[in-house]
C-alpha cells in the first residue's frame, strides 16, 4: 500500500492534500460531505483583524475551465475566527492553518501573533498575494523587498511554522521566493490567483467593482505548474504547490516538479467531496506507477 505521508521538516502530514484558503470556507461547511480527518491539513479562509464585508457582488464568475473571483476577503475578523477554530478543532484532528491577511505590515504581524498563540492552530500561511484587496491587484508579494521586510517582521512575533504564499502576478516569482525564505519563511506556497479581467458588454463596465479579479481552477494548471517548478529548483524550504488541481494525477505532477505537498482550491466548489476522491486517486496512481513513497518522485523531473 502506498505511503502518502509528507514530511515538511517542521511537521508531518498524513497526506499531501491541503484544502486551499478561501475555497474551503471555515472547514465546517464541508462536514456534511466527509470526515475532515482524511485531509493533510485545512487552511481557513483569509482573515484580517476586523470584520470585513468583502466586495460588492458579483464576486465570482465562471470562465472557461476556471473562475474569476473578487471576494475581497469578506470575513468575521480575528476574534470571531478564534471561536470558529476552537469549534472546528473539536470536530477534527487535522492540522488547522490560518491564512493571515493585513492591510499593512503591522496588521499582518498582529493577526499572525494572535493565531500563533492558539493551541488549535498548527501553522500560519501569510497571504501576501491576494489580488482582490487593492484596485489593480497590487499586493506585497509583487515585490521582493517588501516580502522580505514583512516576513522578517512577522517571524519576530510568531512561534508557529510560517508558510508564505506567493503571487504569480510578479515580475520574477523566484526572486520573491528567495527573499521570503531568506527572511525566515519555513515553507512557501504558490500560487495565488492570476490577475484577470472580465467585462460586461451591456454595461460597458468591468464585471467586478475592483476591475481585476483572480483566476483559478483547471485552466491555470499548466501556468502554475511551471511557476512551482521554477521555485522548487531554487528553494531550500518545502514548497506547497497549487493551481488547478482536480485529480490525483494533478497532485503527482506537482510532486514530480518538486512540491512537498499541494493545495486544492476551486475544485471544492463544484465537487465538495473532491478531496476524498483525489486522495483515493493518488493511492491508485501510486500503485499503478509502483511508487511506494512520494519522496521517490518528488522533484525527480528529468530534463
Amino acid at each position, binding site marked *: 500500500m502506498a505511503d502518502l505521508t509528507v514530511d515538511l521538516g517542521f511537521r508531518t502530514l498524513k497526506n499531501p492534500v491541503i484544502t486551499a484558503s*478561501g*475555497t*474551503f*470556507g471555515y472547514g465546517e*461547511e*464541508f462536514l*456534511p*460531505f466527509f470526515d475532515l480527518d482524511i485531509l493533510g491539513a485545512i487552511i481557513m*479562509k483569509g482573515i484580517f483583524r476586523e470584520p470585513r*464585508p*468583502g466586495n*460588492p*457582488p*458579483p*464576486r*465570482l*464568475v*465562471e470562465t*472557461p*475551465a*476556471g*473562475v474569476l*473571483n473578487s*471576494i475581497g476577503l*469578506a470575513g468575521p475578523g480575528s476574534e470571531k475566527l478564534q471561536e470558529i477554530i476552537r469549534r472546528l478543532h473539536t470536530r477534527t484532528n487535522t492540522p488547522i492553518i490560518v491564512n493571515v491577511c493585513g492591510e499593512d505590515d503591522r496588521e499582518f504581524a498582529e493577526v499572525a501573533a494572535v493565531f500563533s498563540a492558539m493551541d488549535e492552530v498548527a501553522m500560519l500561511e501569510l497571504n501576501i498575494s491576494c489580488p482582490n484587496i487593492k484596485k489593480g491587484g497590487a499586493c506585497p508579494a509583487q515585490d521582493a523587498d517588501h516580502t522580505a521586510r514583512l516576513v522578517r517582521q512577522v517571524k519576530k512575533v510568531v512561534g508557529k511554522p510560517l508558510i508564505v504564499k506567493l503571487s504569480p502576478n510578479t515580475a520574477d516569482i523566484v526572486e520573491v521566493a528567495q527573499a521570503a525564505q531568506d527572511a525566515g519563511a519555513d515553507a512557501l506556497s504558490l500560487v495565488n490567483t492570476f490577475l484577470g479581467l472580465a467585462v460586461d458588454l451591456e454595461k460597458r463596465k468591468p464585471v467586478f467593482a475592483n476591475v481585476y479579479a483572480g483566476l483559478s*481552477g*483547471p485552466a491555470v494548471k499548466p501556468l502554475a505548474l511551471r511557476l512551482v517548478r521554477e521555485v522548487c529548483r531554487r528553494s531550500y524550504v518545502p514548497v506547497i504547490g497549487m493551481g488547478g488541481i*482536480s485529480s490525483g494525477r494533478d497532485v503527482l505532477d506537482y510532486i514530480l516538479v518538486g512540491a512537498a505537498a499541494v493545495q486544492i482550491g*476551486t475544485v*471544492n*466548489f*463544484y*465537487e*465538495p*467531496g473532491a478531496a476524498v476522491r483525489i486522495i483515493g486517486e493518488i493511492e491508485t496512481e501510486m500503485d499503478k506507477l509502483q511508487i511506494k513513497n512520494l519522496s521517490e518522485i518528488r522533484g525527480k523531473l528529468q530534463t
Partner: protein
Amino acid sequence: MQDERGLIEEAHSLGGDYFLLKIAAPRIAATAKPGNFVMVRVSPSRDPLLRRPLGLLESRPPYIWLYYQVLGHGTKLLSGLRPGDGLDILGPLGNTFPELPGKRVLLVAGGRGIVPLFHYARAYGEHRPLLLLYGGRRRADLPLLERIKTLCLQGLFIFSEDGSLGQMGLLTDGLEKIVREERVDATMSCGPEAMLARVALLLKSRGLENRASLEALMGCGFGACHSCVVLAADGSYRKVCDEGPVFPLEEIQWRT
C-alpha cells in the same frame, strides 16, 4: 445535504425555453422541503465548470422535479439530457419557506419563480388556505398552468403582460387588491428582482409576514465561497445559498 447521482426518469420540453425533468434522487427527495434548492452538474464534461442552482418544483420520494428556463450555456446543455442519463445533484440546499399553519398565505410567482412556490403549494396546500398569483410576459412563459390546476388552491390569479393569458398586466398590478380582498396574512414571493422590489414596496407596512426567495450567481451553493451575497437592509451582506435563499422581504435592500 448530499452529492447524489440522480437518474433522469422523464425529460419534457414544455415549449419555448422551458423544460421539466423528473429525476430519481431518493436521498435528496427524502429531506427536501419547499424553498430548498439543488446544485446540478449540467454536463458530464467539465464545461461548464460550476454547477447550476435550480429550485425544486416538487419532491416526492424517490423523485424530484426540476423546471427550468434555458438562458445560457449551462441550461442549454441541461436541455440535451434525456431519460436514462445520470445527473450529479447536490442538495437539498438553503433554508425553507415557513409553513405558517392556519395562516392565509398568498404565493406570488413571476415566471420561473413559480418553482419553490409550486413546491410549497403541493406540500402544504391540502391543509390550509393558499392563494397563487402567477404572472409572466406571455402565455408561453406560463407553461406550468395545467399542472398548477392540480394544486390545492383557494384562489388562482393569472397575469400576462401581453394579455395572452389571464389578466393583462404585471402581476404586481393585481397584488394590492388580492391582499385586501382575500384577507391575506402572509406572502411568499419568487421572481425577477424588479418584481420582488415592487412587491416589497407594495406590501410595505401592511403588517403581513412576507418572505421572498432570491437568486444570485453561485460558486458552490453551500456557504463555502462567499460569492452569492445580497445587500441586506442593514447594509451587511447575506449569503443567498445558506442564509437564504428565503429572506424576510423587508430584510433585503431592494434596488428601485
